[in-house]
């Protein structure tokens, strides 16, 4: 069918029915630092590999507090990611202003998904960043991944960035429902180490269902 010669606008569906700009953005995310999230009923943990650009330069912090009960990390272009983090923080406060209560995780993930989705409709550059959200609300702990397509997924294990396929495979292999926080951290460390083939510098963020509060551990 496809000869590679068709002329279509880059932000429209291609002949295979795919949005190539979205796929390019996802390709860019795959070059970011390896980032994972693990959830059990007792906690949500996010961990990210931190890479200083070169010697004598401080690395970017990769764990962000969104609100008291939510934290986020991600992979991809850091400036795109920072913009999405800002959006998450604004959405959380906007919800607090109108409802007087903390935002629930589903709504937060959906709002970010909708924000990114707008970019997929027009001829603009999509944010090349996947976000992993960890948080707790009335209904317990949650872990979400939000992609450049605007898709958001809820689950108990996610990995994005460099060698994320391999990382995810290792996490799924090591995952049990009764994982402790320490065991989960070890799993994240060993997973990222195996994925990037070096002893990584890691940052963590944690929400425990008992407190419902997000803590940065960097």
């Amino acid at each position, binding site marked *: 069918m496809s000869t590679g010669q068709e002329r279509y606008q880059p932000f429209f569906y291609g002949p295979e029915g795919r949005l190539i700009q979205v796929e390019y953005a996802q390709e860019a995310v795959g070059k970011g630092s390896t980032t994972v999230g693990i959830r059990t009923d007792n906690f949500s943990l996010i961990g990210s590999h931190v890479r200083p650009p070169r010697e004598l330069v401080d690395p970017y912090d990769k764990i962000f507090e969104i609100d008291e009960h939510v934290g986020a990390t991600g992979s991809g272009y850091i400036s795109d990611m920072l913009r999405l983090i800002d959006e998450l923080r604004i959405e959380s406060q906007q919800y607090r202003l*109108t*409802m*007087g*209560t903390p935002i*629930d995780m*589903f709504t937060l993930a*959906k709002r970010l998904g909708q924000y990114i989705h707008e970019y997929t409709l027009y001829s603009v550059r999509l944010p090349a960043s996947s976000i992993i959200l960890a948080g707790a609300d*009335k209904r317990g702990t949650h872990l979400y991944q939000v992609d450049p397509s605007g898709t958001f997924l809820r689950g108990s294990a996610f990995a994005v960035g460099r060698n994320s396929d391999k990382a995810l495979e290792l996490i799924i292999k090591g995952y049990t429902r009764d994982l402790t926080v320490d065991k989960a951290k070890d799993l994240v460390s060993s997973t990222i180490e195996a994925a990037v083939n070096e002893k990584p510098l890691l940052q963590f963020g944690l929400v425990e269902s008992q407190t419902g509060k997000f803590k940065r551990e960097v």
Partner: protein
Amino acid sequence: MTTVVGIKTQGGVVLASDKRASKGFFIASKEAQKIFKIDEFTASAIAGQVSDAEYLVHLVQAQRRLIELERGYKPSVFETTRLIANSAYSGLRNYAPFLAEFIVAGIDTEPRLYSTDVSGAISPETFVSNGSGSPIAYGVLESTYKDTMDIKQVEAVAREAVKAAMQRDPGSGDGLEVLVITAGGSR
């Protein structure tokens, strides 16, 4: 021109109202509804401009439905009150105030009672009264309400408070309406 009363206790909340709607010195209706169920465990008693009050009740019902569909669980009584207060506040700030006051009562994790007004201010209360008969109702509430009372006793206090107001306030009368909300639902 109204008397509405709300009282909170351990086992639930009670709302009571008269049934008179006035147009100046004329009794416009003897069967006015002033207590509105928002859902099985949330209700509001209104005072003031009926059209404004009913509009805000309908608006909050719609907003609550959309929120529940989006996030998957019902708004709490406080969130419900906040939504009404938001509309009231923006009305006030745009020189088109909603001329109504609300007592919002219900049970979520526990019995809750809030009052909100034209300014959009929210105050949590254990007992509260609104409307022209409220000073009279408050006389009864202040002298008879005790925090050791159960839901039955509290219901009796609410009835007496509205009855007293109906006797002496020309803006209130024509019968009593009571809604009791407990963990089993509302009646």
